[in-house]
């Protein structure tokens, strides 16, 4: 029986659909926001718009082809996914990488972090209606893409990585030019850091908006800048240094509040750290000579895991091999998979106007996230059976057999 207060709740609560093709979101995604007046009460999310079956395709490809495939999981993380993938394959046989190859890997990875963070800073400005920040941040992102063009020949999708090293060498003649671009970038990043500190518009829109407490960040297993902004330590580059990360000097940026402003600050300061790492790598590349690729003939049967600190957090790849030239199982877990559900904690109870920047605050990448899809019929309708219930039923069935 509907009581009076129940009826009142139903009348007052409205649902606002967002997506799948919203002009603000460059990817297709769907949110159903329930509001009570101006306040967000609940958010539901529908995924699957980007699912292309990477894991299935990867199992039909050779290891080298598979690197080019995982590069196309996401256009922004197009070094992080291949790096984690080659780490996983190298983990099967403990393959060693030449020192010059390690420095080039670190250089490309850090340049990607700079361009990804600048991209987010720009989009954050766009989301809060402050387009000047967008235009300026993307203007200073262009030199990074220019550096990529000098190093790899393409603005995005670099195709640099191979199992056992890297495919292309950095031309020593181009190092002074790269250093020069880094110098200009350093000055501009200092300027953006000052803007983050002083600008009254940014502060009034971002400070104390969408707070993710330390406890929630731990509970949701948030990774990367999202968790570091909430004061949780954790960086794969420090914890399990691969490539040349144990040979370079950098700081881990951690802030306390966990609001969107802190996420902004963490990303801007991380960019400055990345520039520092790039400089060290370029200086070493001037001195160190030698091979860049350890020629790998065979991968034996076994399992391997690869981890890398992508711009959004830890990316994880698992590869199982059977001695042939193909992986028989390839599992991908992207950082956004952990980060996106934190909106359950950070979005509830805030005004609807702040909901979008809070959703965007974790730098979500839906292309990375959507690795699995649940279908019932050809029209791709969601079924009502809870995934958790399915999983628990399976366990109880297995238990019954023993």
């Amino acid at each position, binding site marked *: 029986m509907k009581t009076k207060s129940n009826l009142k709740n139903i009348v007052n609560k409205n649902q606002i659909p967002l997506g*799948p*093709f919203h*002009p603000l979101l*460059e*990817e*297709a995604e769907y949110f159903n926001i329930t509001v009570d007046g101006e306040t967000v009460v609940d958010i539901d999310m529908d995924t*699957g*718009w*980007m*699912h*292309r*079956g990477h894991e*299935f*395709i990867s199992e*039909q490809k050779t290891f080298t082809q598979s690197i*080019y*495939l995982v590069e*196309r*999981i*996401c*256009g*922004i993380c*197009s070094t992080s996914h291949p790096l984690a993938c080659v780490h996983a394959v190298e983990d099967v046989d403990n393959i060693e990488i030449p020192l010059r190859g390690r420095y080039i890997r670190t250089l490309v990875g850090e340049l990607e972090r700079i361009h990804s963070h600048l*991209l987010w800073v*720009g989009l954050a400005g766009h989301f809060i209606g402050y387009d000047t920040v*967008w*235009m300026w941040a*993307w*203007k200073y992102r*262009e030199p990074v893409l220019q550096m990529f063009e000098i190093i790899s020949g393409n*603005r*995005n*999708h670099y195709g640099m990585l191979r199992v056992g090293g890297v495919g292309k060498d950095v031309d020593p003649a181009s190092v002074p030019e790269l250093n020069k671009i880094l110098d200009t970038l350093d000055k501009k990043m200092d300027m953006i850091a000052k803007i983050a500190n002083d600008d009254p518009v940014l502060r009034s829109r971002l400070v104390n908006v969408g707070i993710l407490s330390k406890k929630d960040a731990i509970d949701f297993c948030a990774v990367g800048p999202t968790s570091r902004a909430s004061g949780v330590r954790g960086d794969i580059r420090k914890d399990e240094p691969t490539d040349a990360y144990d040979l370079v000097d950098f700081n881990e940026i951690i802030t306390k509040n966990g609001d969107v402003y802190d996420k902004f600050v963490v990303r801007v300061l991380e960019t400055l750290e990345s520039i520092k790492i790039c400089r060290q790598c370029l200086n070493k590349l001037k001195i160190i000579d030698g091979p860049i690729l350890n020629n790998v003939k065979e991968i034996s049967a076994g399992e391997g895991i690869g981890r890398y600190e992508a711009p959004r957090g830890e990316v994880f790849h698992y590869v199982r091999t059977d001695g042939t030239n193909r992986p028989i199982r390839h599992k991908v877990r992207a950082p956004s998979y952990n980060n996106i559900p934190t909106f359950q904690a950070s979005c509830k109870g805030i005004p609807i106007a702040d909901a979008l920047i809070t959703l965007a605050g974790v730098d979500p*990448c839906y*292309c990375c996230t959507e690795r699995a*899809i649940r279908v019932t019929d*050809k029209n*791709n309708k969601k079924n009502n059976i809870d995934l958790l219930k399915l999983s628990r039923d399976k366990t109880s069935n297995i238990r019954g057999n023993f």
Partner: protein
Amino acid sequence: MGWYNKRLAKSLWVFHISGSPCNNCDIEILDLITPKYDVERLGIKLVGSIRHADVLLVTGVFNEKVAPKIKKIYEQAPKPIFVVAIGSCPSSGTVFKNSYNIVENRESVIPIDMYIPGCPPKPEAMIEGVAKLMEKLNG
């Protein structure tokens, strides 16, 4: 429709939708309206609704969930609308050819007028593509 097309070519308004891409072409499209390339000087503007648009930019291989929505958006558009497919994915399917979840014949979802190949195409290539479209409209 010659007289109409000539007036249309002066200032093309563009709407962008992504059908399961890797995000890269979409970012390069956004890159076009930032200071380095700045296509607004050519009268091209990114608009917020398909009902205001003259050109529809699509990226990516269409998966089975997103394809009906793309068709719906195309049906909402005021005609004539010119569909430009950005990137190698809509033209050939690239690495996703063998996937179980993608629509094999993308022309069956929406008619595509122009392909700009590349993974991703450089912003210069996209500007050239749209310039060629303008040339064609001018007759």
